[in-house]
């Protein structure tokens, strides 16, 4: 399974094996990982699964939808050019070694 690494705001790193097809949000919440809230359950309604991705890995993701773009305007920590919602990132084999950074807060 592809390995996804989560880097917490204070630098702690945790790597999870994530089944292809699952979202990065679900991988985090189902492992009880801190910092990814996902209060709407992955329905692109709440913007509490905000992450930023490594700039040189951004090209591995499909372009974001207008909806994701709109939700990112409402994140608790101001969005960056490499911000994404982790509920909208479905893991593929190409994402093996992917790294996401968890913001200081989601609410």
């Amino acid at each position, binding site marked *: 399974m592809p390995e996804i690494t989560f880097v917490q705001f204070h630098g702690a790193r945790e790597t999870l094996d994530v089944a292809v097809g699952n979202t990065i949000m679900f991988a985090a*919440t189902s*492992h*009880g990982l801190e910092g990814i809230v996902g209060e709407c*359950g992955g329905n*692109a*309604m709440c913007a509490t699964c905000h992450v930023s991705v490594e700039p040189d890995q951004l090209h591995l993701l499909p372009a974001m939808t207008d909806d994701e773009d*709109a*939700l990112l305007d*409402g994140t608790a920590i101001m969005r960056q050019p490499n911000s994404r919602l982790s509920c909208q990132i479905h893991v593929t084999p190409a994402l093996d070694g992917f790294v996401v950074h968890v913001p200081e807060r989601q*609410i």
Partner: protein
Amino acid sequence: MIGPAGVLIVGAGQAGYQLAVSLREGGYAGRVRLVGDEQGLPYQRPPLSKSYLQGDGNADLLPFRPQTFFDKHAIEVRGDTRVVAIDREARRVITATDEMLEYGHLVLATGTRNRPLPVPGHDLAGVHALRTQAEAEALRVAMHAADAIVVIGAGFLGLEAAAVAAARGAQVDVVETTLLPMGRAITAVMSEAFIRQHQRQGIRFHLGTGVVRLLGDSVRVTGVELADGTVLPGSLVLVCIGVIPNAELAADAGLPVANGVVVDENLATEDPDISAIGDCAAYPNRYAGGMVRLESVQNAVDHARCLAARLLGKPAPYHVVPWFWSDQGDWKLQIAGFTAGCQIVVPRGDTDSRDFTVYAFRDGRLAGVETVNRPSDHVAARRLLSTGAVITPEMVAAPDFDLRRATKAALS
């Protein structure tokens, strides 16, 4: 401020779960117990009438968090435990097995239960309800085998399930006593747009009529008889005619109850040691202009956060713009604010197309926004409403009105 027995949360749904988490996030070090009457870990209900019903029944996707998370945060989750009474003087609750659980602060997050259908035949095999994961699983399996389904009640739950059944190819009949599906929560314009959309998928509506009895052979349901004598054949009947708030615990303990457990804008009951949150709580909402009781994820989560802050010594009254979503076939309905009963309604976009927005006004100003397949409008509307900016029907009807631009202007 909270006694040594800590916080006892009765009800392990979205509100109860969130309160436990928010207490720990806020640094509460006392005991936190989350008591529910179902077995297993606390789980999400919204998918039960949507993706879970459609899918292959993967229950692993439903829990909020794994057991290890609750262990790590010292949240004691007790399933299969029904609380039957509150002893306010002794500050403890009594369970169905006569166990006493003491509390420093008691939180009622007891939710609602389905309203029963009071007609003959309601207990036939093949008649389903939908609230718990077990019920969703039974319905999901039964739907595979049914080619004629009758849904009684055209609220969000009934229509979500009806859309799943229709997409499977079943003949679906929906019966509703009012003329407007979901009419308690949305505008008439949106309700009628949904009728047409579901009709395009082959769903048949029977509006403004009641059910007299469910027909069956000796064991199983075979159809539904309406007040005008019409008989709708169906080997599966889903009853979704609304809910009753679980407020008996509060009422029996002498606390005020009126369409739910009555609380103030801090979600406090008359007893300083008892609060109520989520679907079971009736509270004053400034956006609605009176007491409301809402059944939604947003309401549950935001109530929980508000109460956690108060219990942690940082009280702030609950003033939040409500929002809601419902997935019905290809249409994702999203609501920001309170739109039901609004007489002045301005649709933007074609209400027979795949995406449009409906603006609803009360007392001449924007009270809520309903969107179909326009999440970005929905997000902007939530932010716009929270600013309290005065938006009039004339402004929205102007050809060059742009919601995201109006929101940016209101926020700056």
